[in-house]
């Protein structure tokens, strides 16, 4: 049992090591639940809708999207930035756990990392499809070619972005996978089915948990966690630089990198909160994911919300203080009081105002409120990206080019399809891999190790 002065009791009851395995790994060896099949059917339908939309995009072209001469980045980049943000929480939890040894992060780490891997994969799909001719995607790689060789432009933030996302995906998959190895070995040794034994055995790489291996494993994970820390900050900062380095009013601002980063952590933690509340209920993990665990996330959300709120106010102030009429128009007219004011105020309410309810202990410890507010935050963070991308591009310097943006069914299909990828992946993960790191839970449940 873990008792801390600030955060309270973390494990509801004393558990034996075997109980920990039995309860956490139950989904991997028990009969598949009916809700799982229902969820999988829905996710597959979403995925099929997405595949149809991708097929249309590739065979017909980008004309099937709602883009126009002024709005070259539309729904796709909004969703790209949103998904990347969702992904950040997993890496943040890994850093909390591995580098800072924050015990409360142990129960979220595995699921959050799975979420990161899936969210970053979903995100990567959008810029790839946006290329139009996706079969030429390898042009972005610096390889010797017959065009000069015309190397890539290493000074371009768009190339930095490709590298950042690729690095981030590689790192997330590796951290997630290596974090699972001791648990895969546990599953290998207790599986009765031959197929499962062979598969878990293949992926557990012969792990036996010898001292030498544990020492090396811990050393490696610390290095990897340490490398993830600067990366998680830089990934969304680099995404922000895609915007900030341009000259478009509303984008050309130095606040964007830290603002994007905190927004990413904020939306990611909100998504982790929503998902873990559902998982804890469906798999009866209330003894492991306790209210103090969930409360810890709400505290991070209060912090994130305050910083996001400050960023919104700062943007408006700087637009006014700059005295530059285009900036003033974008922030004070177009966004706050003009065509996009309803989206703007939804964003402000969802991200800066609603999460303040978490200051109250009753809200912070209520599962219903936690679910409602975490979903509100994710809607708000989507609106934030919509406001940044669309409001700036529809109204740039030349009023003759002013336009509006409406997504097409293909745009919507790809977005729904990414949810299909995400939920299909999550359901498979929950069915075959323990959603909580069993070895970490066992280690942290030992009084002697504190």
């Amino acid at each position, binding site marked *: 049992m873990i008792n801390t002065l600030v955060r309270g009791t973390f494990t509801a009851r004393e558990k034996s090591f075997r109980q920990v395995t039995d309860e956490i790994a139950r989904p991997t060896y028990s009969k598949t639940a009916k809700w799982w099949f229902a969820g999988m059917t829905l996710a597959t339908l979403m995925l099929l809708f997405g595949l149809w939309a991708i097929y249309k995009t590739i065979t017909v072209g980008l004309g099937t999207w709602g883009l126009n001469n002024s709005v070259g980045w539309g729904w796709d980049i909004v969703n790209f930035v949103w998904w990347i943000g969702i992904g950040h929480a997993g890496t943040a939890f890994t850093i909390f756990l591995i580098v800072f040894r924050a015990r409360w992060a142990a129960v979220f780490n595995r699921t959050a990392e799975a979420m990161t891997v899936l969210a970053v994969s979903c995100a990567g799909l959008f810029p790839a499809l946006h290329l139009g001719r996706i079969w030429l995607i390898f042009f972005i790689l*610096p390889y010797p070619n017959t065009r000069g060789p015309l190397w890539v432009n290493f000074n371009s933030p768009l190339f930095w972005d490709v590298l950042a996302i690729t690095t981030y995906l590689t790192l997330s998959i590796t951290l997630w996978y290596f974090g699972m190895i001791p648990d895969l070995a546990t599953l290998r040794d207790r599986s009765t089915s031959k197929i499962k034994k062979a598969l878990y055995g293949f992926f557990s790489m012969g792990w*036996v948990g010898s001292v030498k291996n544990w*020492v090396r494993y811990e050393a490696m994970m610390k290095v990897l966690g340490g490398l993830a820390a600067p990366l998680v900050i830089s990934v969304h900062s680099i995404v922000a630089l895609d915007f900030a380095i341009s000259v478009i009013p509303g984008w050309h601002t130095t606040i964007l990198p830290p603002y994007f980063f905190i927004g990413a952590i904020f939306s990611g933690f909100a998504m982790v909160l929503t998902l873990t509340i559902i998982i804890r209920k469906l798999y009866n993990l209330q003894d492991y994911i306790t209210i103090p665990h969930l409360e810890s996330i709400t505290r991070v959300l209060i912090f994130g919300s305050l910083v996001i709120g400050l960023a919104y106010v700062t943007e408006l102030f700087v637009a006014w203080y700059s005295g530059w009429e285009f900036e003033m128009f974008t922030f004070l007219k177009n966004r706050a009081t003009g065509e996009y004011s309803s989206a703007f105020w939804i964003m402000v309410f969802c991200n800066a105002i609603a999460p303040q309810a978490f200051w109250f202990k009753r809200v912070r410890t209520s599962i219903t409120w936690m679910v409602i507010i975490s979903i509100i935050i994710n809607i708000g963070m989507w609106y934030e990206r919509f406001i940044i991308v669309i409001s700036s591009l529809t109204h740039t310097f030349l009023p003759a080019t002013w336009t509006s943006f409406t997504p097409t069914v293909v745009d919507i299909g790809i977005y729904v399809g990414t949810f299909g990828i995400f939920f299909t992946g999550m359901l498979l993960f929950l069915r075959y891999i323990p959603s909580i790191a069993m070895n*970490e839970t066992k280690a942290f449940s030992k009084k002697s190790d504190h």
Partner: protein
Amino acid sequence: MKTPNIIGIFDNDDQVVEAIHTLKSKNIKIADVHAPFASHHILKDLGKESRIPYGSVLAGAFAIVATFSFIYWTSVINYPIVFGGKPNFSFPAWVVVIYLMTILLTFIGTVIIFQMRTKMNFGKKAELMHIDSTEDKFVMIIEQDADITEKEVQNIKKMLSDHGAIEVRMDN
């Protein structure tokens, strides 16, 4: 022929730690302990510090030099193109790529070093001493010297039992 090892199976890591202390005080060498989780007391008492982080530093240094050299060669020597009037040697703009490549290559390098050191690989067969050692049992392995007497073996077995070993056996 290899002398069989003395194997002690424990339920609890606290018992293992106590047994390690006693055996160490009697100058008995413990070959290994298999544990279901990283018990920091056991690792502290038995484990040597890993040198993997030194390998990571080397991988990072290689990444910095290799990435800088590659960008310099492509952008300044092999096919210099002027982008927006900027100089070909625009070091500040390269920092981001060098930074990301350093993280990526150090990361990959560290994982490769780990796999080389532990000899772990996909599909490798696990050599388990006890089927539950990845779940809830701790296995202590004591290698016998060639000149060890039967009495000493019995003493070690007794020590393990006294410290709560639920099973003591000889094994290869």
